[in-house]
């Protein structure tokens, strides 16, 4: 038996955290999710797999992407032609409700319903496989669904498909489960989806997040792909294969010079020394050895310096097959100390300012902007803000020091 386990194709979803891209790259970015998914389907056809499992989030329903639908129809038809069944369990992004989908996918495609179902396949080899799974009926499935999964059927193999997250607390929204629950089903393989970073929760039987096929933001750096699973001596052996059309990378640099000019050279040297095989969106974190001067800092802050650098280093970036999307500066953690104001007052001020209520208050009407609200409510944001504020205050203190001295 041989099959492919993929998840989180997120077809036609935009890349996040980009400000601007050269047109050539923009086209690649736009096609990246499709190209990555195509690798999966190409592999399925090339390997003559028995079936393909897609564990949710094939596309983002909210985005109403025509291209994604057209693409799925086309690819499913390809597999249909090759008589390769496709089993789809929709996840939190492509949940069943609010479906405009009036035309069914080709007959080789099985879409699991809102309740756990089991589909049994008889393979060309004569082996039988039971595959259990379900689709999200709406955006959230807060309850543990593993209960509804049957125990190992009388088939040769039994595979579970689950789009969800390991139970973390009362606020779970995504079909929470525990590894123990999954193991209790005695399945031969658990094909998980939802978490974009591929990971293996259990070696044998494999309980695997395939991860997404294409990283779409700087937080999804590293190679992305799917698993080709082959039966070997009664066990299912997953083998990762890469699909990402565009990679994300977040290298860290320690700034050797003191000026932005020095940094520019350092970055281009780094690019020359690290050419990429695939187009790679590279977001640098630059550790400053000492603070930049006011002018440099202003250039960095406005983003002018980066866009200028991107323009001037376009050739170098092309040669390295990389595009530098962002340069994040990281200074040493700064101690807030103003000679003329006691530390305690700063600390007291910080508690007044850096609290959710104040933040929310400050954010004010912007909360009505969904895009910003989503960003704002991210856990990371508050601490990012505080870090940035501290950095800025530290910079100001430096100035005060100058002033005082």
């Amino acid at each position, binding site marked *: 038996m041989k099959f492919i386990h993929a998840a989180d194709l997120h077809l036609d979803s935009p890349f996040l955290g980009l400000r601007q*891209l050269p047109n050539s790259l923009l086209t690649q*970015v736009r096609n990246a999710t499709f190209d990555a998914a195509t690798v999966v389907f190409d592999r399925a056809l090339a390997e003559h797999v028995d079936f393909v499992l897609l564990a949710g989030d094939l596309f983002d329903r909210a985005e*109403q992407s025509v291209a994604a*639908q*057209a693409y799925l129809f086309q690819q499913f038809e390809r597999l249909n032609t090759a008589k390769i069944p496709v089993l789809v369990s929709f996840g939190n992004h492509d949940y069943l409700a609010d479906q405009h989908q009036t035309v069914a996918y080709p007959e080789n495609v099985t879409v699991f319903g809102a309740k756990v179902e089991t589909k049994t396949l008889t393979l060309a080899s004569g082996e039988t496989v039971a595959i259990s799974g379900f689709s999200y009926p709406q955006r959230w499935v807060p309850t543990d669904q593993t209960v509804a999964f049957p125990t190992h059927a009388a088939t040769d193999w039994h595979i579970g498909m689950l789009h969800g997250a390991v139970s973390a607390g009362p606020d779970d929204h995504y079909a929470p489960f525990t590894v123990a629950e999954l193991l209790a089903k005695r399945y031969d393989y658990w094909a998980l989806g939802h978490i974009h970073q591929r990971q293996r929760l259990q070696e044998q039987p494999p309980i695997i997040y395939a991860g997404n096929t294409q990283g779409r933001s700087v937080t999804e750096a590293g190679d992305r792909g799917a698993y080709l699973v082959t039966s070997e001596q009664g066990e299912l052996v997953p083998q990762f294969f890469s699909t990402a059309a565009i990679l994300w990378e977040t290298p860290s640099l320690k700034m050797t010079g003191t000026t932005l000019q020095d940094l520019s050279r350092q970055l281009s040297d780094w690019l020359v020394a690290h050419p990429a095989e695939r187009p790679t969106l590279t977001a640098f974190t630059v550790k400053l050895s000492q603070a930049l001067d006011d002018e440099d800092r202003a250039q960095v802050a406005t983003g002018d310096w980066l866009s200028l650098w991107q323009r001037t280093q376009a050739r170098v970036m092309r040669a390295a097959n990389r595009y530098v999307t962002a340069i994040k500066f990281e200074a040493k953690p700064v101690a807030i100390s103003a000679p*003329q104001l006691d530390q305690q007052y700063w600390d007291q*001020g910080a508690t007044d300012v850096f609290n959710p209520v104040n933040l929310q208050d*400050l954010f004010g009407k912007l909360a009505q902007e969904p895009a*910003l609200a989503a960003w704002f409510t991210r856990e990371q944001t508050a601490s990012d803000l505080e870090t940035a504020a501290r950095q800025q205050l530290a910079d100001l203190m430096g100035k005060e020091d100058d002033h005082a001295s």
Partner: protein
Amino acid sequence: MRLNRLTIYGFGKFHDRTFHLTKGFNALLGPNEAGKSTLTQFISAILFGFPTKKHPALRYEPLDGSRFGGEIAFTLSGTDYLVSRVDGPRGGKVTLRNTTLDLTLPAATLAQLLAPVDAQLFAHVYAINEPQLGTVFAASKQELIDRLRHVGAVGSDFWLRQAQLLENSAEDLYKPQGRKPTLNQLLQEHQVLTDKLNKANTSYTTYWELRQRQQHLQAQQTDLQRQLAVHRQIANQYDQQLALWPVYQQWVTLGDATDRPVSGFQQNDAAALERLTNQVTATVATLKDDQDQLATLQEQAQLPPLFQDYLLVTAQVDPLIAQLPEMTIAAREQYRLQTEQADFQRRASSIEQQYAQGGQMPRVFSLATTQRVHELTSNLTLATQKRRRLQQQLNQLNEQYRQQQPTRQQRQNPLADKQIGWLAAGLVVLVGSMFLPATIFKLAGAMLGVAVGYYGVFIVDSSTPASRQQQSLAEDIRDVQAQLREGSHEINQLTSQLDDIGDAHGLGEIPVVQWAAAQEAIVEWDRLTQRIEAADAQLTTATTALTDFKTAVQRALPAVTTDFPALTAQLQELQATRQRLQAQESDVTASAVRLKRDQVAVDQAQHAVTTFLQTRNLRSTDAFYQQYQQIREQGNRASQRTALAQQIGKQPLAALQQVTSHEALAQQTTTAAGQVVTLQHQLDTATAQLATTAGQLAHLTASGTQATLRQRLANLETQMQDVTQAWLVDRLVSQWIAATLAAASGDRLPQIVKMASQFYGKLTENRYTEIELTPATLRVRRMDGDWRSVSQLSRGTAEQLDLAVKLAFAVVMAQQVAMPVVIDDGFVNFDAQRREAAYRLLASISADIQVILFTADTTVADGLTTENLIRLTD
């Protein structure tokens, strides 16, 4: 800080005045218009800068045109400074000197030295006057806090400035109500893009609609294709049927003829007939052989072919031969009759020719008429003879006369001429008599001719002319001529009578001399006519007999001639031959016998054939074969029909049999074809629509608008987030600074409030004991414990409160800012008691802080112990 000396170069009403101030309480006494407010303004102007020229009333430029400005000597943190300010840009030209160290300092240092007090704070807190006291409460707690914050920390001005910068920067990034700031613009752009995306997202619905449509159309197409195939087949069947129609018609036609069941004309029948005819042929052949043999024999015996024929039909021919003599006679008789008849006919014709006038034969004379005619004729003859005789006499006489008179002819050859003339005349008479009808006339004519000739030759020869004779001759001539004329007349009479008779009997044309002959001819013609009829009857009989005979012979012997004499000869020859043969050898006889036998066999065979034919109601073998052929053809037709049926095919044939007519079939074909066309058209339409849909789908799919917009939105959102973050950070840092400053100054607020409570108690002589800061404002507690809000206080009491707070603020903050309190007639609304209390308080705080009191109240000097009292009016 304390002010030591004020030197005015020129300011308002003052010029070149110097006031020396002491460390503690200074009272500057002067009535209204003495320049109290001018001095307050002077202190502010020198320390913090002249107001701009936009506010000339506040600038106090000297009225007398002396130099605008002045200087202040002050002590700060144990160091003495001198600041002078004269008119100049940006608040005036400042000169600062550290007089302790005798250093000239940069002008900017002044603000740092005075910080955090600036013009605003000075005006709000340290420069106390009545209107100020009246308005201060509008600001309430926040105002107080702000002021506290303002002076809350040493160096807080920097932070406050930074906070202000951050706020400005934040406002550049975002203003909730703005349009210009970056984030506002981004948000607008975001809205535009979102709208675009929403618009583009409608393509999603369209996509599914198209998909559905495509599916529907595909189903339709498939259905139509199927239908089309069916209808094509139907149409094809019809076409085929139509094409097969002629064949089918042939088939139908063939089918009509095959229904008649016929027996007796089968193959075996034909064979039987064949056998029989063969038998006939064989027997005939045998016969032929025998005939040949006989012929050979006969050839040897020189038997004519006719005899051979005869041999076959002797029975028939023999009786005929027996009749032969009889027939010969009949034939001869016939011939004779024919000859006779022909003769009669000829004669009758000749008579008719001679006498018939207009086809009408003249009638026969009666006896009387005959006699009369005879008589008349005789008379005429006599008359004629007489006339002729006379004529002759005349001629003779004439001749004689001529002879008497010799002529040229005589000279030449008169004799010859005369002889020839006579001979010619005789010849003419002779020949002319030949044309006369009767023999008698002919004879008479001939004799006359001969006589004339004779006369001419012999008599004339002997005549002799004489002159005397000529006279007698002439007389004779005249006499004869008279006689001639008489005779002619008689002749004419007779001729007329005869003509009458001839006319009556149709003999008008015939000369009378011939009448007798004509009468005879007419009688003869009558007789001939009768005899022709008789001969005709006889001939008919004979001819019939002969014809019958000939027919009989010919029936028996087709070879014989029709010519009867030849026939007779042949028959006689036959008879002769037979008789000869009978006498000849027996071989021939035997042959003949055999021939007879053969003949019998032939007859039998032919009879068999005849029987065969009769049983089938046929006349001849040809008829049989015709019928047989017909039946054969029927068979052929049947097989042809089968072949045709095969060609047509079982189903089409069945289908064709359902068809009523060619027209109906054609109609059906047309209908089917029409249906096919319609379906094809529908299919084409569906296909075209599918192509369109596919095109639309491809267009939708390929447009990439959604993806592009989405990516642009994502990028924009990134930008927005960055800007928002920057904005938030700016705001947060600003807030943080504010909060820190507030925290730093926050310790002092309770002190200020506590001290203000004390001061307020003192000012109100303990009618109010406590001041409390509420979140929004201040409230005060009366002696009896009731709380009063500021608005509930009387104006004087409220001003007392304000004074208390301000003084408390100044005293408490003196740790950081030892700014002198400048009171410009602030107590005008106070009664004497309150004023005294106020003076007392001022005096008590002057230990900590320099107090400069401008007042018109002269009681100050009395009621207060001041170190320094300056009278402005001096």
